[in-house]
């Protein structure tokens, strides 16, 4: 039986029934058989009664249902207040111009549709069409915020009712897009639906105080309070550095002192703090390379100095600016020459590019990616490397923030081509890459049944790409490596691999770029990459 497509006006339909239920048969097939009979487990009856989930039966935000009509009314008023601010040059100077231009410029040619991995992966569910949320927002603005809007909306056939159901569904809808901005890259007129998504998130956070717990409460709030989103304290960081030194000794046979808080160093290296907790081999590899190359560099043990992420970039300008300033302040106090962002895509874009226009005077501090530096070390033979040590199939996942959003495309390829004889691109790649499915906070969001959604839907295209890239060597006895130079992407790929048992089934592991460089270093006898 053909499923009925949701329409724009359905967003206001007062019903508990989701507008769309993604079924197994809707999903694009993966290159292997998998048990996806019920891809997303439904919420329990208790959860359904308590929280809003009428968009698609998923809850990313856990928005509680208002207790009475009065509360509903207040929330709707608050939403409209926020919307007015979003459209005001003074209140929203940070993104007013690109937002207005994105709202005005869409000609509904739907060219962007096929660029969206979520829309395509779900067999083109209407609610995931990249233009769906922008169209809803546009119609609400036209009807409720423009003169004569109500009469015109009826006349134009664009009538939309703004009730609590609309608001709650729109809030959830803002968390069904990874903001990879592939749609914006595709748009011939430059309408940026990724930005529209972000601005809706911002409205909910900055005006209504609604944001995913993992991004706000345990994210930026914790980051500002404790110094890192993972909650690592300076004392714990000291222990981590010691552990890193032990690891280096174990791998290289030499004890190395990792520079911490070294005043006046050329480079302050900022890692996502998640690397220290989950993928310690990544900061270890950086330390080995930088020491081997004789660079003047340092880590920081100051609050905010060992955390490169800034979750604010996904949903809240104020939190974003607060964190960016704290990070810069650390570098300024250390009197280093520049900050280099490690393997974290979000950190790259937010710190190097987006923060540029909130930094003034002495806070206007040099910041760049680690990639040009690493490419220089590898390509100009400042490290002794033996590519035969990396003689296994390798493919590269491009973090959206690094390629499409920043234009760093070639250095990582030049490195891989030099040190990995069996390097093979996945398709598409570079600025046309697909998101890992964990972008814009999804990799860390784990409330209720949202993890199912990010595994089966937002990450589906990436998993397909990875398996397609290795289709000739899928035999598990052939060890294969997905190079994902981004902490966030690694988190998502880890969850995808774990769910589908990719490591055991196909012998594929994932990791960063620097690990491959160290694995190829002549002076290190033991293999750096561990396959078990």
């Amino acid at each position, binding site marked *: 039986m053909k499923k009925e497509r949701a329409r724009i006006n359905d967003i206001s339909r007062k019903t508990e029934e989701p507008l769309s239920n993604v079924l197994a048969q809707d999903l694009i097939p993966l290159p292997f058989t998998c048990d996806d009979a019920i891809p997303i487990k439904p919420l329990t009856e208790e959860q359904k009664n308590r929280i809003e989930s009428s968009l698609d039966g998923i809850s990313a935000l856990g928005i509680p249902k208002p207790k009475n009509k009065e509360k509903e009314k207040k929330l709707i008023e608050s939403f409209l207040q926020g919307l007015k601010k979003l459209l005001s040059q003074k209140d929203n100077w940070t993104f007013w111009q690109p937002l207005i231009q994105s709202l005005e410029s869409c000609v509904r040619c739907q060219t962007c549709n096929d660029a969206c991995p979520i829309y395509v992966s779900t067999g083109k569910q209407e609610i995931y069409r990249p233009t769906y949320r922008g169209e809803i927002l546009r119609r609400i603005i036209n009807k409720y915020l423009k003169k004569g809007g109500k009469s015109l909306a009826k006349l134009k056939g664009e009538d939309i009712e703004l009730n609590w159901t609309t608001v709650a569904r729109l809030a959830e809808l803002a968390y069904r897009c990874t903001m990879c901005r592939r749609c914006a890259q595709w748009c011939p007129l430059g309408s940026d639906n990724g930005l529209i998504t972000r601005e809706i998130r911002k409205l909910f*956070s900055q005006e*209504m105080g609604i944001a995913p717990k993992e991004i706000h409460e345990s994210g930026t709030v914790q980051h500002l309070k404790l110094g890192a989103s993972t909650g690592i304290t300076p004392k714990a960081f000291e222990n981590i550095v010691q552990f890193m030194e032990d690891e280096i000794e174990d791998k290289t046979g030499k004890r190395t002192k990792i520079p911490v808080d070294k005043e006046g160093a050329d480079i302050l290296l900022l890692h996502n703090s998640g690397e220290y907790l989950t993928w310690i081999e990544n900061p270890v590899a950086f330390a080995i390379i930088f020491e081997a190359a004789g660079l003047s560099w340092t880590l920081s043990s100051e609050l905010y100095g060992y955390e490169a992420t800034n979750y604010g970039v996904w949903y809240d300008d104020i939190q974003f600016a607060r964190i960016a300033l704290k990070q810069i302040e650390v570098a300024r106090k250390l009197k280093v020459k520049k900050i280099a962002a490690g393997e974290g895509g979000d950190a790259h874009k937010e710190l190097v590019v987006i923060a540029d226009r909130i930094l*003034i005077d002495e806070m206007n501090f040099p910041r760049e990616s680690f990639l040009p530096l690493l490419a220089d070390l590898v390509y100009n033979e400042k490290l002794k490397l033996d590519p035969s040590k990396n003689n296994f199939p390798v493919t590269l996942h491009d973090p959206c923030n690094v390629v*499409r959003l920043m234009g760093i495309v070639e250095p990582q390829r030049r490195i891989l081509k030099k040190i990995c004889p069996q390097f093979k691109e996945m398709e598409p790649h570079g600025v046309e890459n697909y998101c890992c499915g964990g972008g814009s906070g999804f990799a860390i969001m784990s409330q209720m049944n949202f993890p199912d959604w990010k595994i089966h839907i937002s990450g589906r295209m990436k998993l397909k790409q990875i398996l397609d890239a290795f289709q000739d060597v899928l035999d598990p006895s052939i060890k294969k490596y997905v190079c994902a130079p981004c902490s966030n992407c690694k988190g998502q790929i880890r969850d995808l691999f774990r769910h589908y048992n990719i490591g055991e089934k196909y012998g594929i592991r994932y990791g960063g770029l620097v690990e491959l460089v160290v694995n190829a270093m002549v002076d290190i006898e033991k293999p750096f990459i561990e396959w078990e």
Partner: protein
Amino acid sequence: MASIIKLLQYAKAPLHLRWELYQGSSVYEFPDGWNKSNLTLWQKFKSVIIDVAFLREYYHRNRRLWIFLYLFHVGLYLLILWHAWLFLRALTLPIESTSIWGLLWGHIATALTFIGGTGILIKRIVNEDLKVYYPSIHYVKWIFLLLTLIGAFYAVHIHFNAHMPALLKYVKEQVTFQNLEHKLHPAAAPASHVLFASIWLIYFPFSHIMKLYFRYYHHLRWDDVPNVRGSSIEKRVKELLDQPVTWSAPHIQPGKRWREVVSEISHHGEGQGQ
């Protein structure tokens, strides 16, 4: 005038945070790329010309729609140029001696615009994706446009009998107010075309092509000018940081200035939205 107002509106918009996209390698691939800019003025100019003349992005991303869009736009550009030529020709040279090329130019341009416009309208009616959110008012716009083109063809080919000297004479009289009788009691066919075309002229500043530079090239592709110390960008940032923050969520203290709010740490946020 409306175009100038629109341009000023865009020019006066506040500086925003950077949010650009890249179609390939950028200066960030090089050490110290943070304080460099990507494209030269000439590179930008070349890119605009290619995009506007060939609708390059549609060609790459949506070929089936591009075919009709391209015919339509080429026709439209030729029509605009033809009208400019018509005015210049009528005012500067003797109108009795004209070649067939002027008439042919007008007819080809009208035909291309008409074929392209009809194709787009049909696609907008039959294609599920193209009609899904397309505002109904735009269907009226397309029909009106096709009627304008039919009216133009009628005026030139039937009313003026495809006779260029007669057309040029009419244009000259209209522009120079030589024949008040014609001004006061105009012939229906050319007068209605002038009226329809004038409505399109009023619409032009609000059309998508006019906004193209500001929305597309400016903020998406080329907004990579670094904020260097002492620059005009830094000056504008300083002014913006003095703006009051008005947002009302618990983790923000409305009423204070941006620079104050972002320098403070708010521990509010526990239980947000719960």
